[in-house]
């Protein structure tokens, strides 16, 4: 049963299992360092569709279908699906998943949605409301460009602080089962805003949210970075990662830097891939890194304890044009290769 710990953390006593997972990407993701770990790579970023929005929906559907296939499950075996993306009205999810006929819970948490959906899916399973839940998110460079920035063929130079929206999707199936990794707890973050107004510097806008959620989790559980193998942020990129490390160090956790990794810096090779600038971003960035690389590594035992913290810039182009700043959010999922134990090792937060 879920149990609230401290201010914002929920301990999931039954340790729901991340039973199956799949990652889908496109050409640029394949060229990146994690390319070979993806389950599906589509060279054609239209995914055989006629518009970018339809392409994103198709990609998300493929991610869910692949995860189901890997878990030898049918859509009917899933009780609820939690899904979201960056597009208005979350169309990537609604159109992508409509044919599956799984009870659907649409979420918007910008790029934090993978942690948000995984957290809620795990909670549903832990409290017994569902036997199996799916969580999926996606982002597509082209559909995001046309909604948030400029037309694809428009001649704009990107700022060095800007990030590349990943054309990728990741989906997981959470179940009461006995396969690692396990979700030990979830921590939902607060909305943070340190008045960053530059839409070309999302990393800087999101870093405070990541720092705040991580520190809250440490305070709630009485642990620190030494208890974990990896602290994985979603898409802070180069600038945001630096700021995140500085912020956590200022608050008394200078060791975070050594355990910190960022999906936005892992998905692409900034030095050798064109136009990546400060790193990857988008819902699909953290989702695909989690599902292609992190979860398999945990299942094989190469990683034991991971804090997965997807970060989202809750930006509305309309409101930013009105002069507002960019609020951001981060949710934290504590993943472990071991489930909670009754007593002894594995029964407490720091053991």
């Amino acid at each position: 049963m879920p149990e609230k710990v401290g201010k914002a953390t929920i301990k999931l006593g039954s340790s729901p299992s991340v039973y199956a997972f799949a990652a889908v990407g496109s050409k640029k993701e394949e060229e990146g360092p994690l390319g070979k770990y993806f389950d599906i790579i589509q060279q054609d970023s239209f995914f055989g569709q006629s518009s970018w929005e339809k392409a994103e929906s198709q990609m998300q559907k493929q991610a869910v279908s692949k995860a189901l296939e890997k878990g030898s499950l049918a859509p009917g075996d899933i009780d609820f699906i939690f899904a979201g993306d960056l597009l208005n009205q979350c169309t990537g999810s609604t159109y992508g998943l409509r044919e599956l006929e799984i009870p659907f819970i649409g979420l918007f948490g910008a790029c934090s949605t993978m942690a948000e959906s995984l957290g809620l899916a795990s909670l549903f399973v832990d409290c017994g409301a569902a036997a199996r839940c799916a969580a999926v998110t996606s982002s597509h460079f082209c559909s995001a460009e046309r909604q948030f920035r400029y037309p694809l063929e428009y001649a704009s130079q990107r700022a060095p602080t800007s990030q590349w929206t990943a054309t990728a999707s990741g989906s997981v199936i959470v179940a009461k089962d006995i396969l690692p990794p396990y979700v030990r707890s979830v921590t939902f973050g607060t909305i943070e805003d340190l008045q960053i107004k530059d839409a070309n510097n999302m990393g800087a806008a999101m870093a405070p949210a990541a720092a705040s959620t991580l520190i809250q989790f440490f305070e709630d559980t009485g642990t620190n970075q030494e208890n974990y193998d990896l602290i994985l942020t979603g898409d802070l990129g180069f600038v945001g990662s630096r700021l995140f490390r500085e912020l956590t160090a200022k608050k008394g956790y200078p060791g975070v830097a050594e355990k910190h990794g960022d999906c936005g810096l892992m998905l692409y090779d900034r030095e050798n891939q064109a136009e990546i600038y400060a790193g990857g971003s988008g819902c699909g960035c953290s989702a695909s890194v989690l599902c292609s690389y992190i979860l398999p590594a945990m299942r094989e035992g190469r990683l034991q304890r991971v804090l997965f913290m997807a970060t989202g810039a809750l930006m509305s182009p309309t409101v930013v044009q009105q002069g507002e700043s960019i609020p951001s959010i981060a949710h934290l999922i504590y993943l472990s290769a071991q489930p909670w134990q009754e007593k002894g090792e594995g029964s407490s937060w720091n053991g």
Partner: protein
Amino acid sequence: MEWLIACGKAFLIGGLFCVVGQLLIDYTKLTPARILVTYVVSGVVLSALGWYQPLVDWAGAGATVPLTGFGHLLAKGVREAVAEKGWLGVLTGGFTATAGGIAAAIFFGFLVALLFKPKDKS
């Protein structure tokens, strides 16, 4: 030889206009659309003050091709139309002088949009 000098002047002045634009992009965080607006309005103002025509005479396309030249064309059109038609010229002058460019952008834009498809960046 003369044409080479004319090209050199066009290169120099045109290049300098673009350098100012690049500095605005890099240092002020002005969006491209704002820079285009700034250029056109500056062109109108510079032309009204009588400073732009000498530049056009000297640098040719170096002054007419940048968007300040578009502003200059608007101002020049209005100036001439007012002299010719009075109050009506106030409203017709600008569009009349720039009609070719605007119609070309609309028509070619329409054709290109019909015929081609946007592509992912890779």
